[in-house]
């Protein structure tokens, strides 16, 4: 097991290296002097010269990469000239809403998708199955922001049940926080519910034809126990895999959802950074999200043994 984790950790090094090289080259590929690009439009020539020395722009490109990656590994992504802060500070401020949104979305997605998928598989070929599958294709097809605006229109404007936009920190007012998380999490959750329900259905359907399911039924176990304990648990590995792959979509969706609901998270920060061409911030956010994505998938790989002890590494 430890051997496996070590091997997986080593395997992600080249992947993250490619990501780092890409993120590093981003700034070098933009037309113009990187120092001037970073400094923004209102910079003095002194500031630009200062950045030049910090980035080591007079050195060969591999040395520049060395300087950059050395700083990045220590969490130092330089200074955002647009926001007048260090990038690390900026990110630290913006983490909470994104993390909260991601966790709430995942909880909602799993709570809704697993039962839907299991029922669809159990009632395979009936109208329930067709409804779930139809919903899932629809979920893939409607853009996140359209869902977001529909929900805002319905629940915030017409019915007035929930606030339209904004964010309250969890420590400040927990109820206010929850109230403002409902719509964004459901908005982002729709695609995720669609994805997980579809995989759950396919996976459970395959397991249901196994011998041990027949044995469990023959023992006289109730449908609930057979479905939830025997079928779902054995179907867990593909479901976990699809959740892991879906994290990429979750991150992309968070960028959009945060913009729709005015959540001051990392996704909004990304868009603001791109619009103001704030490269140190863009680089840091992309690197951070990629590391998180790869890291979660690593954890999921490791967790397979928990769900399926037959898997040995």
């Amino acid at each position, binding site marked *: 097991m430890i051997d496996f984790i070590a091997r997986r950790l080593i395997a992600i090094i*080249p*992947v*993250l*290296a*490619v*990501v780092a*090289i*890409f*993120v590093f080259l*981003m700034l070098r*590929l*933009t*037309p113009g002097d990187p120092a001037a690009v970073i400094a923004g439009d209102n910079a003095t020539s002194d500031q630009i010269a200062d950045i030049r020395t910090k980035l080591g722009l007079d050195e060969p490109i591999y040395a520049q990469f060395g300087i950059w990656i050395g700083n990045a590994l220590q969490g130092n992504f330089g200074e955002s000239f647009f926001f007048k802060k260090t990038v690390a500070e900026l990110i630290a401020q913006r983490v909470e809403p994104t993390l909260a949104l991601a966790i709430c979305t995942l909880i909602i997605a799993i709570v809704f998708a697993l039962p839907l998928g299991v029922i669809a598989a159990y009632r395979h070929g009936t109208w329930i199955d067709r409804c779930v599958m139809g919903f899932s*294709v*629809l979920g*893939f*097809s*409607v*853009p*996140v*922001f*359209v869902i977001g*605006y*529909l929900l*805002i*229109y319905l629940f915030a*404007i017409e019915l007035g049940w929930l606030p*339209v936009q904004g964010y309250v920190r969890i420590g400040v007012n927990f109820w206010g926080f929850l109230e403002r998380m409902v719509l964004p999490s459901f908005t982002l959750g729709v695609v995720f519910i669609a*994805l997980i329900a*579809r*995989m759950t259905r*396919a996976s459970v359907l*395959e397991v249901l034809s196994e011998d041990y399911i027949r044995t469990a039924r023959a023992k006289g176990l109730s449908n609930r126990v057979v479905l939830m304990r025997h079928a779902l648990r054995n179907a867990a590995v593909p479901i976990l895999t*699809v959740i892991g792959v879906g*994290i*990429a*979509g979750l*991150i*992309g*969706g968070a*960028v*959009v959802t945060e*913009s729709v609901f005015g959540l001051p998270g990392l996704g909004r920060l*990304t*868009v603001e*950074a*791109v*619009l103001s*061409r704030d*490269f140190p911030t*863009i680089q840091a*956010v*992309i690197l951070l*999200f*990629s590391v998180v*994505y*790869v890291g979660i998938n690593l954890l999921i790989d490791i967790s397979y043994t928990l769900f399926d002890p037959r898997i040995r590494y």
Partner: protein
Amino acid sequence: MSVILEEVIDSAAIASASTKRKSLWAAAIRNTSVIFGGSILLFMVIIAVLAPFLGTVDPTRIDPAARNKKPGAEVTMRLDDGTSVKRTAIMGTDSLGRDVYSRVLYGTRVSLAIGIAVPLVAVSIGLVLGLVAGYIRWADGIIMRIMDGLMAIPGILLAIALVSIWRAGLITVIFAIVVPDVPRVVRLVRSVVLTVREEPYVEGAISVGTPTWTLMFRHILPNTIAPLIVQGTFIAASAILAEAILSFLGIGIPPEIPSWGNIMAEGRTLFRVFPHNILYPGIFLAFTVLAINIMGDGLRDTLDPKMSKRV
């Protein structure tokens, strides 16, 4: 001798592959999902082609006198010769007085163009890289490491990063949407190549000295076509969504081009009062993507049964 043998193997492989492909296609076009999705899509294509003749006006025409009209409002349009005509803005107007109906209809052209261009480019690049990676062993490691790296960056984020490098324009946006899709195509093609290269007919072709390129394009490539068409439809659907997302965030194609994403981006600020600016393009967008997804599901079930077990 070897030439004759090669001919025999060649013609046998091509004959069996082509009859198999014909029956697959026959099944595909009889599939209900393919027919249903295809019909909606055809309808959209007709709208895109006939946009100028469907009672539309210039979608970029700004009219300060007719700003923010609700759907169904009467709008008086001043023509260049000084006369004015009344027309009904069935989907209302936006905050610059542009006709939303015309913009949505013309927007169909942009979205469909993206939905055709992106999969074509992504599949072409991915096909070449995948064939090379699957067949030439020393290139495999390099190509696949780069693809793994690209896949580690969430798709929309990668597209946003690419757009930020060059200033937004139609070509930039297409390229930015293509790049995140390429690794998936490469993986697919590579996996097909790795399976097929162990087949007896490929071994046979190798043993009679078929040149590598002939082998790759004549014997291996046809096996990738069915899965690539399936993959291509899903890329088309996600590309249309990606363009809308980028434009909606204000980093997509230039705002003067009437794309669905741009219309919705424009409608954001006044959404509470005038939801139609987001509603109508949203409906068109959802229907188009839904049609492609349904068609893709049907194509997958018929053309690529092995893949239907995956999501």
